[in-house]
C-alpha cells in the first residue's frame, strides 16, 4: 500500500469513528446538561463548594462565576509552581521563575497550554498532576459550560436565567470528561504510555553511554490533554515523545480524543434547541472546513516542496518514523483546527505551505471544530453573523432559531469576532518592532516572521502549539503571550454570555416565509464562506509576508 493511500485510510477511519460517536456522545452530553437530578456524589461536592445547585444564574452572575473561578485557578497554579521545591515529588526542581510561572498559569487556565517551559526539566509531578492536569479538566469544562449557556440562550424564552455555572462545571467534569479520561488513560498505558511516580531510571546504553529514562504520571495527563483540547505536554517534545505517544494506534486514538467532544457538541446543541437538523448543519460547516484543510495539509506535506524537504527526499525533519509524514500532517490539522496545540511533529520544520495551513487553521478562530465548547460557541457566533449578512443581502429578517438578530446581538457578535484578530495583529506588530521580540527568532527572514506570527496567533486563539524555534521563555514573550491568552479567552467569553443573556430575554419568533432556513446546505455553504472571507480579509496580508513569501518561488 502506498503512503498516500495508507494516509488517506488513516484520515478516513477517523472521520468514520467521529461519525459513529456523534450521536451517542452528543446525546449523553445533552442528558448531562439538561438533567435535573443530582447524584449523591455531586450533592456532596455542591455542599463542599457551598452552592445551591438548583439556583440558576443570570448572564452577569454566570460570567462573574467563570471569571472568579479562573482568577482563583491562575493564582493557585502560579503558587504551586512558585513553591514546588517544598512539595513532594518535585524531582529537586527549583521554583519556576515568576514570569514563566505567570505565563504557564494563564496558559493552562485559558485552555491554551502554550509552553514556554520544558516539562522534563522544569515541572515536578505535583505541579503537573495537581496543578496543570486539573486545569486540563476544568478549563475544558468551563468552555463547555459557556457553550451550553449560549445554547440555552437560543432555546429559552423570556427569562434572564442561563443555568448554574457551578453545576455545569461539576457535571461536565465528573460525568463527561472524567469517565472518558479514566478509560482512555488505561488504553494509552496498554499502548506503552507510562504511569508511575518514580524519578526515572539511570541506564547504561548498548554503546556504554549513560541515559536517564524519565518517569511520571504521563498517561493520566496525556488523555485529558487531548480530550479537553488542551495540548500542554508532559515533556518538551509533547506528543512526539514515545512516552506520550508510543504507537501508531495511540496516535490515532489521541487524534480521536481531540476531535470527539468538539464535533459531538453540535448534537447536544441540536437536542437542546429541539431540532437535530440544526446540529447537523453546524457540524457540516465544521466538517467541510476540516476536511478541506486536512486534504491540503496532507498534500503540501507529501509533495514536500521547498529546498530542505526536497534535499532530504521527504518532509521528515521533526517527524517521527512510526507516524510518518501523512499521519503527522493529520495530527497537525486536528490539533490546530481544535484549540489543542499538542504536536506529534514539529510545525516549524514543515514545508512553507504545510506550515501555513497550521497557522490558517488557527486563524479560522478555532471553530472547525474548535476547542471543547469554545468551538461550538465560536461557530454559533459566526452563524449569527452569517444570518445577519444574508439578511442584508436578500432583504430577509435576520433570525436564527426563532431569535431576532438585532443591533444589540450583532454588537456582541462582532466584538467577539474582532477580539482575536486585534490581539494577533497588534501583538505580532509589536513583536516585530521591538528588539526583545526579534531576538527570539531562531530562523531568519520570512520564516522568522512566521515564528512570531504563529506565536501570537496560537496564544490569542488559545491553541498553544508553536513554531517552536522561537525562544519563548523571555520576559517579553512570557508577558505578551500571557496577556494575549488571557484576553483571547475571557473577552470573547463575556461577549458570548452577554449574547446568550440577550437572546434568552427575547420571546420566540415563529418561522415565516421571510425566515432564512438554517438547516439546508445553502446555509452551511454561507457560514463556511463567511468564515473563510472574514479570515482571509483579516490575515492574508500577514500570511503574505511570512509563509506565502517563503513558499512561493
Amino acid at each position, binding site marked *: *500500500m502506498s503512503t498516500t*493511500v*495508507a494516509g488517506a*485510510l*488513516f484520515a478516513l477511519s477517523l472521520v468514520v469513528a467521529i461519525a459513529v460517536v456523534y450521536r451517542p456522545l452528543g446525546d449523553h452530553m445533552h442528558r448531562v446538561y439538561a438533567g435535573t437530578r443530582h447524584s449523591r456524589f455531586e450533592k456532596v461536592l455542591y455542599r*463542599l*463548594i457551598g452552592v445551591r445547585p438548583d439556583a440558576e444564574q443570570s448572564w452577569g452572575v454566570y460570567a462573574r462565576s467563570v471569571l*472568579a*473561578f479562573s482568577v482563583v485557578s491562575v493564582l493557585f497554579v502560579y503558587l504551586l509552581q512558585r513553591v514546588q521545591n517544598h512539595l513532594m515529588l518535585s524531582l529537586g526542581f527549583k521554583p519556576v521563575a515568576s514570569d514563566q510561572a505567570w505565563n504557564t498559569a494563564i496558559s493552562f487556565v485559558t485552555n491554551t497550554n502554550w509552553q514556554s517551559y*520544558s516539562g522534563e*526539566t522544569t515541572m515536578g509531578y505535583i505541579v503537573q*498532576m*495537581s496543578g496543570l*492536569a*486539573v486545569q486540563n479538566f*476544568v478549563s475544558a469544562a468551563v468552555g463547555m459550560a459557556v457553550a451550553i449557556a449560549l445554547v440555552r440562550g437560543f432555546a429559552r424564552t423570556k427569562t434572564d436565567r442561563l443555568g448554574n455555572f*457551578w453545576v455545569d*462545571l461539576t457535571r461536565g467534569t465528573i460525568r463527561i470528561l*472524567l469517565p472518558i479520561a479514566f478509560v482512555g*488513560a*488505561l488504553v494509552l*498505558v*496498554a499502548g506503552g*504510555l*507510562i*504511569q*508511575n*511516580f518514580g524519578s*526515572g531510571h539511570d*541506564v547504561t*546504553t*548498548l*554503546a556504554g553511554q549513560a*541515559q536517564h*529514562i*524519565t518517569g511520571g504520571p504521563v498517561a*493520566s495527563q496525556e488523555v485529558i490533554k487531548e480530550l479537553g483540547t488542551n495540548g500542554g505536554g508532559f*515533556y518538551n517534545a509533547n506528543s512526539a515523545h*514515545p*512516552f506520550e505517544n508510543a504507537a501508531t*494506534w495511540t*496516535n490515532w486514538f489521541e487524534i480521536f480524543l481531540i476531535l470527539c467532544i468538539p464535533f459531538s457538541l453540535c448534537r447536544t446543541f441540536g437536542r437542546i434547541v429541539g431540532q437535530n437538523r440544526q446540529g447537523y448543519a453546524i457540524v457540516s460547516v465544521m466538517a467541510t472546513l476540516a476536511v478541506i484543510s486536512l486534504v491540503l495539509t496532507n498534500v503540501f506535506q507529501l509533495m514536500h516542496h521547498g529546498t*530542505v524537504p*526536497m*534535499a*532530504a*527526499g*521527504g518532509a521528515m*525533519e521533526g517527524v517521527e*518514523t512510526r507516524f*510518518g509524514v501523512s*499521519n503527522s500532517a493529520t495530527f497537525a490539522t486536528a490539533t490546530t483546527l481544535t484549540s489543542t496545540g499538542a504536536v*506529534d511533529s514539529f510545525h*516549524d*520544520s514543515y*514545508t512553507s505551505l504545510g506550515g501555513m495551513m497550521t497557522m490558517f487553521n488557527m486563524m479560522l478562530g478555532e471553530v472547525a471544530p474548535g476547542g471543547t465548547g469554545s468551538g461550538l460557541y465560536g461557530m454559533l457566533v459566526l452563524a449569527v453573523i452569517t444570518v445577519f449578512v444574508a439578511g442584508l443581502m436578500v432583504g430577509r429578517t435576520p433570525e436564527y432559531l426563532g431569535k431576532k438578530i438585532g443591533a444589540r446581538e450583532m454588537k456582541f457578535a462582532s466584538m467577539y469576532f474582532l477580539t482575536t484578530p486585534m490581539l494577533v495583529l497588534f501583538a505580532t506588530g509589536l513583536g516585530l518592532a521591538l528588539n526583545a521580540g526579534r531576538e527570539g527568532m531562531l530562523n*531568519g527572514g520570512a*520564516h522568522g516572521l512566521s515564528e512570531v506570527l504563529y506565536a501570537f496567533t496560537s496564544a490569542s486563539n488559545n491553541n498553544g502549539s508553536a513554531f*517552536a524555534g522561537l525562544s519563548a521563555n523571555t520576559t517579553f514573550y512570557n508577558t505578551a503571550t500571557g496577556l494575549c491568552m488571557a484576553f483571547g479567552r475571557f473577552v470573547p467569553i463575556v461577549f458570548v454570555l452577554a449574547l446568550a443573556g440577550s437572546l434568552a430575554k427575547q420571546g420566540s419568533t415563529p418561522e415565516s416565509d421571510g425566515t432564512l432556513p438554517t438547516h439546508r446546505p445553502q446555509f452551511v455553504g454561507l457560514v463556511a464562506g463567511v468564515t473563510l472571507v472574514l479570515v482571509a480579509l483579516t490575515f492574508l496580508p500577514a500570511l503574505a509576508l511570512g509563509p506565502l513569501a*517563503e513558499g512561493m518561488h
Partner: protein
Amino acid sequence: MRIPSWIRQHLAAVRALLVLTVVLGVAYPLAVWGVAQVPGLRSHAQGSLVSADGRTAGSSLIGQSYTDKLGNPIKKYFQSRPSAAGDGYDPTATSASNLGPEDIVDTLPDPKLVAADKTDENAKTSLLTTVCTRSKAVGELEGVDGSRPFCAKDSGVGAVLAVFGDRDRRGGVPHPTRVVSVNEEEGVVRAPFVASYDGVKVELAKYGEDYSKGLIVPVKGDAPNKPAVPADAVTASGSGLDPHISPAYAKIQVKRVAEARHADVAAVRKVLDEHTGGRDLGFMGEPRVNVLELNLALDRKFPVQ
C-alpha cells in the same frame, strides 16, 4: 452579617478548585496508576524497560545513539536517526531542531579557528548543510552514493549561490555581475561546486562578508531525486528519541554490520526482517525497525567484543 456577592463567588471558586483538585489531581492519577499495576500493563507503566546481560539497557520505546566516545558510529550496531535532544537521545532534553524548510545559508566559522581545530561559537550551520553533511557521512560509512539534490558533491555542504546584479520586476537577476557560493568557505573548500553561473565565475565565500543583498539561489544539481540514503537518515526526529528507523535505512546498514560481526550478510538480513514491522492494521503509521531491539538480538546471536 451578609457576605457581599462578589466575595461569596470567590469563596465558592476557591472551594470548587480545592475539591476538584482532590478529585482530579490526586485521586484520579492514583486510580489510573493503581489499575495500571495489573500484569500486562505494569511493565508499560514503568517505561517498557529492556535488559541485556542482567542489567537494564534502556527502554524499547526510547532510542539510543550507537556511537563511541568521539561520536563515531560503532560499526557492529545499526545506527539510529540524527537527534536534536541534547547531545543526542537525551530524555532530559527532548527536542526537535525546529529549523525551517528554507534554512539554507550557513553563518561561516572563522577559518583561523577551524585550522586550529576549534569551534567558532558564532558560526551556525543551516539545516540544508546539516542534511548534506549527514548524507555524505552515511554514504561513506555504508558504501553507498551519499549525494542529494541541493547538496555540493565534494564539500558536502548546501549548494547555494548568492547572485548579485540589478533586479528585474519579478525580483530575479537577469544579468549577474557577481556570484558567490555562500556555504563554501575560502581556506576550507578548494573550489566551488560549480565553476560558473550564467557566464559569471563563481567565487568562494569569505569569512565575515555579508551576502544578504544577493539573490539566494539553491542549485539542485544532478543528484537523483530519490537518493540512496533515505530521508530519515538525514533528518532529526520530533522528539529526538525516535526508537525507529525506516526499513530502507536499515537495509543499507546490513553489509557493514555483518562485516563488523564477522557474520553472514544473509543471516543479519534475516534478523533484520524479523524486526521489521509493517503498518499497524495495514494502514496506520509507516513500516519501521526498532533499532534497540534489533541490536540486542544481534548481540545475542552474533556476539563480538
